[in-house]
């Protein structure tokens, strides 16, 4: 029996080593885009993933980075942690060094594993906000404004346009941890800036909110933040407008896009504000090149009509940052890339704005959020029109929240 176990063990180790060696040899950098195409995140995943893959195709068409090409491993996880774990382990065996789950449950379930395996996990606009603390979460990169930063940016915009003192702000949110996320930060701001804040939860998934909005109307808020996702967002906007809240006074989290405008009615929604992480439209150098070299060449990953939409551009931006990180890592750390080198590459990113597609972000070893930038844009009936410059606000308050969460994590939770 002993000889059997020993030989079997040796064979297994040998097999594992050859498999690992084979992956490290070639010049392909693999990203695991293991996302939720069939469940909760369907409203964003299609366009987001299309943008990600189109950008990687663009980079490959342009000759790659320093002789390296990029390959996306795309799988559906259905928002189920156990399928996410399987997809993650498989992709890691195939040599992926960067992961994007675009699913809060899956990301949360895998944070520990990622930290242990030393591969990069990007969690743009989802996952744990406190992962912005690079010292506690060295391999996790939110890399775009967390929900806390989005709330502070909206608050700052209100302050710059009419002031906050004595105002009443209603937060109408989906009843989930995600929906409640901005509240502590806004409460802290309410105390500092002297405005009144009240939260109005509605039941998930938010297809029926009339009772909530009857209450909101009686509160007579000066501004309403709507904090939900998917179909619930368009219901929020409709109910808000129906209850006599002027469209201009509705401010949305990042999850409000062209599809929601179509659902609400494009003209009805005119005036609604939202937080914006990334510029929308095709009038940007990167999008032009994607159009020429990927879409027109017939290499697009999906429906050409989606190019330039909000979520598509967010997808492009995430990959632009990731490819930039890989470029910096190759330049400073040398090939072949692994998770640790890619992480170092991320932390070298400085004032990177993807040719105007996104705010200039700087990622450091401490700050994995990239500064928490964003801007406010307004629906003008046909498109999202920016009404502010890129800026970040109240980062001290956000930082406090991040550090508190990170300390709790480090303490065992």
């Amino acid at each position: 029996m002993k000889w059997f176990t020993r030989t079997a063990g040796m064979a297994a180790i040998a097999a594992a080593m050859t498999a690992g060696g084979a992956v490290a040899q070639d010049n392909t950098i693999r990203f695991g885009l293991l996302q939720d195409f069939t469940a909760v995140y369907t409203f964003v995943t299609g366009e987001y993933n299309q943008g990600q893959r189109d950008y990687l195709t663009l980079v490959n068409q342009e000759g790659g980075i320093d002789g390296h090409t990029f390959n996306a491993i795309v799988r559906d996880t259905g928002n189920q942690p156990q399928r996410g774990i399987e997809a993650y382990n498989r992709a890691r065996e195939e040599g992926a060094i960067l992961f994007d789950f675009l699913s809060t449950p899956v990301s949360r379930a895998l944070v520990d594993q990622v930290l242990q395996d030393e591969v990069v996990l990007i969690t743009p606009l989802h996952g744990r906000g406190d992962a912005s603390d690079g010292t506690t979460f060295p391999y996790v990169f939110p890399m775009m404004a967390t929900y806390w930063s989005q709330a502070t940016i909206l608050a700052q915009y209100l302050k710059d346009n009419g002031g906050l003192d004595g105002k009443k702000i209603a937060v109408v949110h989906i009843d989930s941890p995600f929906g409640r996320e901005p509240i502590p930060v806004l409460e802290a701001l309410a105390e500092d800036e002297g405005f009144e804040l009240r939260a109005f939860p509605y039941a998930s998934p938010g297809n029926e909110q009339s009772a909530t909005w009857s209450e909101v109307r009686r509160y007579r808020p000066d501004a309403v933040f709507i904090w939900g996702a998917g179909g619930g967002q368009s219901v929020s906007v409709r109910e808000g407008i129906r209850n006599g809240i002027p469209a201009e006074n509705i401010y949305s989290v990042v999850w409000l896009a062209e599809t929601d405008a179509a659902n609400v009615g494009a003209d009805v929604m005119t005036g609604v504000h939202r937080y914006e992480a990334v510029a929308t439209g095709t009038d940007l150098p990167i999008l032009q090149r994607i159009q020429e070299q990927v879409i027109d060449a017939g290499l697009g990953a999906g429906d050409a009509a989606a190019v330039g939409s909000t979520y598509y551009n967010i997808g492009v931006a995430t990959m632009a940052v990731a490819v930039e990180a890989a470029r910096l890592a190759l330049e400073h750390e040398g090939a072949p890339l692994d998770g640790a080198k890619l992480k170092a590459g991320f932390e070298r990113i400085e004032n990177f704005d993807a040719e105007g597609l996104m705010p200039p972000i700087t990622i450091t070893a401490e700050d994995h959020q990239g500064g928490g930038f964003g801007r406010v844009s307004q629906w003008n009936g046909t498109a999202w029109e920016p009404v502010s410059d890129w800026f970040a606000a109240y980062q001290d308050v956000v930082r406090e929240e991040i550090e508190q969460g990170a300390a709790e994590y480090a303490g065992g939770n």
Partner: protein
Amino acid sequence: MFYRLSGIHHTRYESARALWPVPADRWQVVALAVLALAAPLFVSNLYLGSYILPWLIWAAAALSLSLLMGLAGQLHFGFAAVMAIGAYSSIHLVRAGVPFELALLGAGVVSALIGTVFGAAALRVKGLYLVMATLAMQYLVDWVIINVPAISGGAQATLRTPAVSFLGLPISTLIERYYFALGWAVLITLFFMNVKRTSFGRALVAIRDKDFAAAVIGVDPFRYKLMAFLTSSFIGGVTGAVLAFCYYRAVTPEQFSFNVSIQLVAMVLVGGLGSAIGGYLGAGFVLLVPIFLTNFIAGLGESGWIYISQNLMAHLPLIFYGAMIIGFLLLEPLGLAKIYDNIRKALLVWPFRHSRS
């Protein structure tokens, strides 16, 4: 030929009632046990950690539900909530300084208590109404977990499992976790196979077949229905704790949502109600088939065999998976266990078509 039946003559009741009277079955069990024990040596971490380990734990969960649905005939569409109670209570107990061994027991007790309240509805109704009542319970438990941050783990709603050891052995590396889960699955399987042979098990079967008739012959439905919920919820709760500590290691409410309850019911039904091997086959089917389908179809797409949109590619596994569930129900309502049984019966007499009896 494969199953030699010659020479098997029972002279004592004990031997006739043995779990595996046929030597070939015994050999299969021994071979499986050896394979399972040696699995870390020849199975890669990928398959051990993302296929076999969850399979074992979900099989244990399916067996505990099968005890309730298959033996006692009480439908339960909120079993994920029972497991959630177990998972959350075990973590909070360990955090509070209770040793892991006791925390597992505590998780079982808490789940059993709350799970028996679920069962209270069973005293009044059965069939469809019981399905609805347990479904409502699932939503209530979910709501409590999500809305009480003290339970779900603060703003991030994630609860990490602390490092633990069982009887002095640490449970942290994949291999340690695998052996712990294996031990639990084996324990539950043995319990499940033996409970059918006790008076308790027979009483449950009597209730399942007709509770009024059972009452007539002296089996108290009130007591045994509650006992069924108690036992099944206890095991389910501990399995939930094992799932949290050995597999997920970071617990979020979504891991025990309504969909998971449905998956558990599917495991039991597709596997075969009240069958031990059915628990394993059903858990394997429901857990692994979507994963295999996803990888297979993605592989086809990447190698250029099919040209379809990413959207359709992601939904195809769902279609096939649902179609397979329907197909099994239509073609073999008794589940995969029955298919196994048919094959075994055919092999028993192979190369002949029929046995004499």
